[in-house]
Each structure stands twice: as C-alpha cells, then as structure tokens.
C-alpha cells in the first residue's frame, strides 16, 4: 500500500517539477497515439461508409472479420509489422524499424478495425429514409457525403476516444517495433515495462498515474466538444 502512495507522490512531484524525461516520454506517447487515431479516423470514415452502402458478396463475413480484429493482440500486430518493415522484409527499404514513424503505422493498424466497425454501426443505426430523401431532393454526391458525415459524427468521435484509449495503453507493439529507445521511441507504457524490469517500482507507478491523468484530460476535452 505504501508503494502505491509513494508512487502517487512521485507522480505529482514529476509533474509539478516538469521533469524533462517524463515530459519527453509523455509528449512522444501523445504524439504517436494521436497521430495514429487521426490517420485512422481519416481512413476509416470513408471506408466504413463504402462497406455499409455497398452490397457485395461476403459483406457479412467482412464485417465479422472487422469485428474480430477488435481483439487483435498488440504483439501480433507488432510481429506482422516487424516482418514487413524489417530490413529483410518486403517493406524494409523504408528503413523504418525502431522509429516513431513505425509505431504510428502499427497503432494505426491496431485501431482502424475498431473505427471502421464503429462507423459501420453508426451508419446502420441511421434512418434508411435519410439517404432516399436526400437523393429525392437532388443531393449531389458531395452533399450526400457531407450529410452522412454529419450523421455519423458521434460514431467517429466514439471511435477516436476508444481508439486513442487502445493506442496509448498498448505496450506490446511499441516495445516490439519501437524498441523502447531512450529519448527516441520510449513511450509511457514501454517506460513502465522497463522500470518494472529494472526494479524501479515508484517511477513506473508514477508514469502509470500520468498516463491515466492524460486519458482523463483527453476524454474530458472530447466530451466537452461533443456536448457543446
């Protein structure tokens, strides 16, 4: 119990004194996970709409597959990304292994199924009449897209919130493709893992508390935007 209290005090101390190492780690974690969520939102929204509004063979299976990928283990994404982007792999020429860029790619892959899934279910919940009415009123494709985007905004927002939660809290992928390099690819979760391995319990606990605090702030901000 004393350890948890010590960790809490240490966390407060690290935050108040703006400890440069902690600030760097926190900034990197945020930058990577937010970038991944943003890229994913931009990809997932049109993709989700495309799947929802077209009927094709195997559609139901595809949707089930996307939902299955909600439970994609982070280490598996890590392994696949590693095999593709390692120098010996098909995309090795980019030389991206052990860099923040590869972590963004990995996390984007991790959260995209979740976002597509949420866009599809947001669209499924729509009144079927909306599209027909808009078409009958002579909406062009651009106007139609705009209308639908308006309707699924909460789905997309929920996707961003959940996706961000998944991205910032994952450790397997970040460790595997990022390599937990000090001052370059070290995120909150990989630093916690290392701190624990090295027996620095308090520091790990402090970082854990900081991670939760960030999640709280981000969620409060997004909720506020949603309610305005």
């Amino acid at each position, binding site marked *: 119990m004393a350890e948890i209290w010590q960790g809490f005090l240490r966390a407060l101390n690290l935050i108040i004194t703006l400890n440069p190492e902690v600030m760097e780690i926190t900034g990197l974690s945020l930058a990577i996970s937010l970038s991944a969520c943003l890229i994913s939102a931009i990809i997932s929204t049109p993709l989700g709409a495309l799947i929802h509004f077209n009927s094709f063979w195997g559609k139901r299976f595809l949707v089930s597959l996307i939902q299955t990928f909600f439970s994609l283990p982070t280490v598996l994404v890590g392994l696949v990304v590693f095999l593709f982007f390692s*120098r010996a792999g098909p995309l090795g020429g980019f030389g991206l292994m052990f860099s923040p*860029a590869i972590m963004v790619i990995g996390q984007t892959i991790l959260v995209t199924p979740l976002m597509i899934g949420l866009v599809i279910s947001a669209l499924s919940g729509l009144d079927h009449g909306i599209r027909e009415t808009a078409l009958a009123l002579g909406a062009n494709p651009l106007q139609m897209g705009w209308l639908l985007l308006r309707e699924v905004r909460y789905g997309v927002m929920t996707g961003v919130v959940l996706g961000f939660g998944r991205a910032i809290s994952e450790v397997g992928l970040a460790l595997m493709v990022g390599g937990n390099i000090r001052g370059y690819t070290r995120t909150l979760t990989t630093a916690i893992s290392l701190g624990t391995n090295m027996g620095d319990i308090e520091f790990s606990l402090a970082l854990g508390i900081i991670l939760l605090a960030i999640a709280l702030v981000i969620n409060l901000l997004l909720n506020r935007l949603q309610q305005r």
Partner: protein
Amino acid sequence: MKKLIAALSFLLCLTMLIEGCTGGIGIAQPRERLRVATTTSLYDTGLWAVLEPRFEAKYGVELDIIYAGTGIAIEYGRRGDVDALVVHDKARELSFVADGYGTERTPFAYNYFVIVGPASDPAGIKGLSPENAFKKLAESKSYPFISRGDDSGTHSKEQAIWAAAGFSYADIQKSGDWYVDAGRGMGPTLVMAGEKQGYTLSDIGTFLAFKGQTGLSAIVETGSIMLNVYAVIPVNPEMISTVNSQQAQNLVEFLTSTEIQQLINDYGTKDYGTSLFTACAGNEPVS
C-alpha cells in the same frame, strides 16, 4: 457537424503542437543514427545510460540502444535492423560471424554468473560447483528452479550448465513442477524466484540491482563455467548494405578505449559497493 470538425481540428492542433515540441516523428530522419541491439541483462545494469551520452558526444551520432534477449538481438542483426550487437553468448556470436553476418567479435568486459536462492539455502547447494549444484537440484526435484526460458544469453548459459552436469535439457524441462519456465527478462525472473523462494541463474549485475527487492542471496558464485563475457560485433556491410559500418567500428574502438575500459571497471562501485564488470579490452578472458 461543427463539433466533429472542432474535435478533429483540436486533435490535429494538439498533435502538431506535441510534434513540434518533441522534435517531430516524421519519416525523415536527418540525424545520423547507430542502432545497437544489446542484451537485457547488460541494459538493466544501467551501464548504457552512462556510455550513451559519451559516445554521442564523441562521434556526433545518435546512439539507439535496443535491448532484447541475445536470441532476438542476433536475429535483428541477421535481418539488418541494427548496425552492431553487444551480447553475451559466445557460441552463437561465433556462428553469427562465421555465417558472414558479423565482421569480428571483440570481447570488452566480463563478469560471472551466480546461482541465487533463499539465504537459508534449503537445498544445501552452497560450496558445490555449479554443475554439482544443478545436479543436486535436479535430483531432489523439491526446490523450485526458475529458468529465464527466453532464448537469452543467460538462458543458454543455464542450458550449458545442465549439459555439463550430465543432463539433457529436454528432460529437465519436462521433469516436473520444480522446473519453472518463466519466459521473462532477468528482473522479473529474479522477482519470481524471490516469491517462490526458489533458485535461479542470474548475471551478477541484475542480481545486485534486485537484491533488495527479492531478498535472495548468491549461493554459488565460483566455477569457470560461470564466466560471462560481453562482446561487440559490427554487422557486416558486405552482407547488409544499409548498415552504418563506420559508426559501428567507432563503437568497437570506443568500448575498448582506455578511458571507457576504466569506466567499465569502476561501474557499479558507487551503487552496489562492488564493481559489476572487469574490462578486458579485446582479449578473451580465461579463468
């Protein structure tokens, strides 16, 4: 709709702001980097945190230290994902060089492995040779032995001791509940040994770092088989063209330089009251 746009632009601004602050995470990597895969046990001693800034200042390069078990570290080398290896598994290092993946193996420091366990030594292995201590543990089957089980250098040393004690490792693995295959790094393995009041094989550095937390003692610490040599191997540019071989060569020079060898010799004295390594500048130690 305005909310969605507001939310997305808020995210975008935040991302850009953070990336501005942290120097960006762009794909372009203008600064020269040297990527080195090292073993968990060496990393956990904190030695790299001391060496890294010195190397970076001297050679004007970003040194990226990636820690992993020796098994995966060597795999990173074979695949060309790192420019040099700093590991501790002679047999595998030699085959890495023999296969053409590494240019040359240069030993630069060593210490000894220790068999650690509860201070009371319930199995009574104190004073035995490492081989006989393992034999006694395997024959009694009543005291937990925690194995790294992760294909690391420490794990392969453990297997070498089982072999020297006259056991087949496959038999040991399935000989009962006393043999625990942890599949984890040295720190967590030591913590597990402490919780289960069992024995394990550890490098001296990680053992000392965790001594306070685990309450374990060094039970067997002598025997030539316990020698633990750390060596540096640059990845062969003829095999992998993208490798930063100039800086990898600088790393070899750096680690064997008089100044750094002195630093390695003294490392740990302040924290543990005893030095963690003996420097051996390019020569294979014999014991």
